């Protein structure tokens, strides 16, 4: 019997389906990483999060 995946593994699984918005968010941060402030890349992050939430829902 396959052991039940840990929450972090399910999380990693869902995140791995969102490489495109993740790369976009990463680019936004790295472009100017000496001047990062709160919600600097909130637009890109919300796209990433929406993608993750959809992927997590689909996996259930």
């Amino acid at each position, binding site marked *: 019997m396959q052991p039940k995946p840990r929450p972090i593994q399910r999380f*990693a699984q869902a995140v791995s389906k969102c490489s495109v918005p993740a790369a976009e968010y990463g*680019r936004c*941060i790295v472009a100017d990483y000496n001047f990062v402030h709160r*919600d600097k890349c909130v637009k890109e992050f919300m796209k*990433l999060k929406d993608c993750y939430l959809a992927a997590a829902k689909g996996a259930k």
Partner: protein
Amino acid sequence: MRLTLARVGRPPSLLHHHAPFPRRRSPPRQQVRCYASFQTGGTTFRVFNSRTKWLQKERAASDPALSREADYLKDEVAMRVCERLLDIKRHFPRALDLGANSCNIARALTRDNPDPELPSSPPLASRITSLVAAESSPALLHRDADLPFNAQLRLERHVLPAPSPSPADGGVSGGSDDAEVPLPFETDSFDLVLSSLSLHWINDLPGMLGEINRVLKPDAPFIGAMLGGDTLFELRTSLQLAEQERRGGISPHVSPLADVRDVGGLLGRAGFQMLTVDVEDIVVDYPDSFALMQDLQAMGEGNAVLGREMGGLGRDVLLAADAIYRAMHGNEDGSVPATFRIIHMIGWKESENQPKPLPRGSGEVNLKDILEKK
């Protein structure tokens, strides 16, 4: 600067002695009178919660299969530490493995053919009569007590006293450091002290090195390896950037670590002679940053910095950190690298009939002449 109120049990004349590094005086500690004083030296800077560290190790060892899977780093470093024994042509009647984790050193010592230059060489364990493995976490120490390597050398497992939670502040400050120093061994009782990947969790590193020097016999070596410098800088920077952007502030997630430059000074201060300090980077690739964090947890190497935020990282921060990790440090094939910087150190306890460096200015040949002739 943080000023602490401390109980001081030593003559008042010493109170004004400012040491460059704070160092705790080892026993006998007789408390004659109690002074309340502002201290700038003589107190230990507390960085880690030793109780948390102890609990993390116990927890990691409670799942032997997972814990063994994450032993690759400790086994590799233990092997590299033991390889250094090949350079010392000696027999060691009694050796100490300080901070033994799951006896990784004992396992490395029993490996066949440790010398790559000879077609076949006996395991290094044949050069050690008995090995004392000292570790504060009993579950981790006894995890592999049933495996075959135990029969190949005389191994004595010694559980060091566990740090107790201090009731005064609900265990937040992580109990007392007395569990770390002094070591429960006699002075001049070991022919060799080994230590692999444990010293980076010691609050009072100068005091611990002094204790190691104390338990060694004169002219006996200490061979150690600890994580230091830029270890896990990828994880450190991505978490910082992620928290900065998501939450507007940062909190410590990766330990502050000793630097290579510091280690030489610390060894010298502890009384070691003929020092050798060198650095090695081990880079491990992981599929994603979560795999790295899971493995760190399974190694018992989770965050135990005092003043860390309780509870896990939020999902938003994890999500952001993984994206930043990939963008900043990721490999082309989609994996992410994690750097472990290992500081190796060798020091010898002082003895009268030991070779010593010549005094300064006694050189007769100018190095410049030799180098320029080439």
